[in-house]
């Protein structure tokens, strides 16, 4: 059995250490000291409880158990002395707060860090530098930048204060890059003037430079729209045409208009291929100062084009983007695999949704690409317009969504806007703290929301006063604004230009505990919706008071899902169907193990997504669908009519031994360990297979720990 030590490393459970510690405390007291048998009993019981937890328990948790057991034996004086001893040890440890954690991560012993972010490899030097900075930032945040009650609430898993590893710096979360402004009006990268590009491929090159710079100056994701690259297709076309005419003149030959047009379009296609390749390969091979590839989302929205020619050119770029993603990228062994980035979003709209519409062929390609590579995800223009005052625009990075906002001329603006940061409320804890009493529930909910509100205001205050010089690419050279040097970013933090988000997690478990039913049950759905509405009301109130736009957000909690689950078990014990898993359910999602078909799930979740104004994504879990594209198209069509934003978790794995292309399954080996096995040839060598799965909305290809593998195995299919 493993335990997790204070510095984050793993160690084997050693019962003798408990016996020794309690004996020490017991011997230092004359009154009610314990017999060796009693001490052994306490230690045995703690061992038994740890085994029952079915996860690695922390030292602090073990000490809590010891304390409780001493008290249960009736030795209160001894318990008191044990607590005092613990407290003194804590003080000693506090003297150097980060040394051990930093040293353990350099030596690759920090289990917590290893499990934290599936996109970062903590054994690599450059990633370790980011993590070291993160440890220092977390330490400063906990000791100096946040008040003790917020730190404590975060530690207890009542709330989650996201990205405290970046909080020490004046950084924001995520945004929509105003690529259009930067490309059309020029920008400055590393003090070098970059003028409007003269070709599509140069525009793509500059775009990736911009993306790299932006990613290094914030901690969240960014989105760009391919529409902003589309005008450069015509520029390239004109340029190529001039070249071709010149060549013909030089060669002293004649060519018909048709021949010329054909040569021009062929060359143009090659340039588009090259440009799109630049973006794809640069993005996944770049490493930002955050120790990972830029978290980039690429938006593909035909209707965003300014005229018919631009729309046709945009279609060419979208088509090429889909083709290249379908092909994948080669790993070091030369095998084509599913890349995690960039994330792609394809917008479903009137002229691409039905067979017979002009761009339906693109939707078919998108469906085929999704079946093989898990992306693109889908946004319904129709549903988004219903919810966003007639607008359709990208989410920022993964799912954070802006509110509609108009500039001083009354025009809606989305690009250049951003999110200030997130604090997530653990809804399950609110429910369990109320003991199931509804009145008490709303009262505690109020208190917790206020706590989140205060924590969010700390985030906001941390950004206030930030000078534009902190990140020139963002604030001075167009990615988010064109502020002067030395100017603060303050005006962008107010009036709804940017948002700040109240995240939430565990709606399913919350409702399950309060009503005894899943929120999919018509009797429980109204309560679940009330919870969502309550958070909306709170956000609206805060917005009115502060002139800062608060929005509610279905947080993609990755390692936090374990932290919350662990904290809940610690605070409330194991409650069947509520705290008996090693994870809690993200946002408003239906529980992974609940049988429901894809269409019912999307229809149900749509009501919740409408109330998650700051962003959220729904997903359906499906098998390998490469041979059933018509079924993929049915799901896509359903998304168009029913839900704003959704994705398909498809399975298209690859066995390098037999060439099998389909779903590689999880089986139990002789020792009860879960392993991946090719259903065709029985290969179990992870190095000879490629498996891609989405976890919490992110594509992972590196295989997972046993806990997560278990969760993946338990997922029910919705088709």
């Amino acid at each position: 059995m493993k335990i997790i030590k204070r510095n984050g490393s793993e160690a084997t459970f050693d019962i003798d250490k408990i016996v020794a510690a309690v004996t020490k405390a017991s011997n230092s007291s004359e009154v009610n000291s314990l017999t060796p048998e009693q001490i052994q009993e306490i230690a045995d019981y703690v061992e038994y409880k740890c085994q029952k937890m079915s996860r690695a328990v922390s030292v602090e948790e073990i000490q809590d158990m010891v304390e409780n057991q001493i008290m249960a034996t009736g030795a209160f004086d001894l318990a008191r002395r044990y607590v005092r001893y613990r407290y003194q040890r804590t003080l000693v440890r506090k003297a150097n707060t980060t040394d051990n954690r930093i040293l353990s991560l350099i030596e690759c012993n920090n289990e917590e860090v290893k499990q934290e972010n599936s996109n970062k490899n903590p054994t690599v030097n450059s990633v370790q530098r980011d993590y070291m900075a993160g440890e220092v930032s977390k330490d400063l945040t906990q000791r100096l930048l946040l008040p003790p009650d917020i730190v404590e609430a975060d530690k207890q898993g009542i709330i989650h204060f996201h990205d405290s590893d970046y909080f020490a710096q004046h950084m924001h979360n995520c945004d929509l890059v105003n690529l259009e402004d930067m490309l059309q009006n020029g920008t400055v990268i590393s003090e070098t003037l970059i003028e409007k590009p003269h070709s599509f491929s140069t525009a793509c090159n500059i775009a990736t430079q911009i993306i790299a710079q932006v990613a290094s100056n914030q901690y969240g994701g960014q989105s760009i729209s391919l529409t902003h690259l589309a005008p450069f297709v015509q520029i390239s076309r004109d340029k190529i045409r001039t070249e071709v005419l010149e060549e013909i003149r030089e060669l002293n030959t004649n060519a018909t208009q048709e021949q010329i047009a054909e040569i021009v379009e062929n060359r143009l296609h090659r340039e588009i291929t090259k440009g799109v390749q630049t973006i794809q390969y640069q993005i996944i091979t770049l490493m930002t100062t955050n120790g990972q590839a830029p978290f980039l989302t690429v938006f593909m929205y035909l209707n965003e084009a300014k005229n018919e020619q631009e729309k046709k050119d945009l279609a060419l770029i979208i088509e090429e983007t889909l083709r290249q993603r379908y092909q994948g990228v080669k790993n070091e062994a030369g095998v084509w695999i599913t890349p995690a980035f960039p994330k792609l979003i394809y917008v479903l709209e009137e002229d691409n949704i039905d067979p017979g519409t002009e761009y339906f062929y693109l939707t078919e390609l998108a469906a085929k690409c999704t079946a093989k590579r898990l992306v693109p995800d889908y946004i319904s223009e129709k549903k988004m317009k219903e919810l966003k005052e007639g607008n359709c625009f990208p989410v920022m990075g993964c799912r954070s969504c802006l509110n509609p906002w108009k500039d001083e001329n009354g025009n809606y603006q989305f690009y250049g806007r951003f999110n200030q940061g997130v604090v997530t409320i653990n809804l399950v804890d609110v429910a369990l703290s109320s003991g199931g009493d509804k009145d008490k529930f709303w009262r505690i909910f109020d208190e917790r929301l206020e706590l989140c509100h205060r924590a969010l205001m700390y985030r906001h205050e941390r950004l206030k006063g930030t000078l534009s010089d902190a990140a020139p690419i963002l604030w001075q050279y167009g990615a988010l604004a064109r502020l002067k040097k030395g100017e603060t970013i303050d005006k962008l933090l107010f009036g709804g230009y940017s948002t700040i988000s109240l995240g939430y997690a565990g709606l399913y478990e919350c409702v399950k505990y309060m009503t005894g039913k899943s929120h999919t049950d018509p009797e429980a759905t109204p309560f679940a919706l009330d919870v969502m509405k309550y958070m909306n009301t709170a956000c609206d109130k805060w917005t009115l008071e502060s002139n800062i736009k608060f929005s509610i957000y279905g947080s993609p909690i990755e390692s936090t899902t374990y932290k919350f689950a662990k904290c809940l078990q610690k605070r409330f014990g194991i409650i069947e169907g509520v705290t008996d898993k090693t994870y809690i359910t993200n946002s408003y999602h239906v529980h992974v193990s609940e049988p429901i078909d894809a269409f019912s799930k999307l229809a149900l979740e749509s009501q919740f997504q409408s109330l998650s104004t700051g962003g959220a994504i729904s997903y359906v879990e499906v098998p390998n669908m490469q041979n059933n594209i018509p079924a993929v198209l049915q799901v896509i069509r359903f998304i168009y009519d029913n839900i704003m934003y959704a994705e398909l978790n498809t399975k298209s794995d690859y066995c390098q031994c037999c060439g099998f292309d389909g779903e590689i399954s999880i089986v139990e080996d002789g020792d009860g360990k879960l392993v991946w096995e090719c259903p065709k040839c029985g290969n179990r060598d992870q190095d000879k297979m490629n498996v891609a799965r989405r976890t919490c909305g992110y594509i992972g290809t590196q295989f997972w720990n046993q806990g997560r593998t278990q969760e993946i195995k338990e997922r029910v299919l919705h088709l």
Partner: protein
Amino acid sequence: MNYGEIKKCDIANGEGVRVTLFVSGCTHHCKGCFQPETWDFSYGRPFDEAAAEEILAALAPSYINGLTLLGGEPFEPENQRALLPFLQEVRTRFPQKTVWAYTGYTLESDLLSESRARCECTDAILSLLDVLVDGEFIESQKNISLSFRGSENQRIIDVKKTLTAGHVIWQELKSDHVRM
């Protein structure tokens, strides 16, 4: 006729999203059959009015491409007699949706010629089908990478084209036609 199961969002047995009826009773007894319990004609529940209505209701949503008959063996004569009026009802109510059927019999030798399967309903049933996946499951020819069939010998037949042409014409699968 009895049936074992009705799947309401099936994507494994035919193109698109389908409602699949697993009828009971099969006399092929193929080695390696994926559900031998359905060989028994009394397996599951009776296919009554309520079951028929359940399927018709499940076929209604726009995202359902059609119905698939599976088994067991839909082409055992007693099953054909129960299925024919039901299929007629499906066709009347949902003329736009497609009907697929799976059989262990072979179209030319068993369904179109005299055999233990062919009965007074067979031609009528065939005329109501869009696609027939035929042939016994042969374990030695099993291939899990095949679309909508279990072993290499089985065929996905475009029934209408085949009956018109007088020789077997394969169904064109849409997934093969979306080219990257």
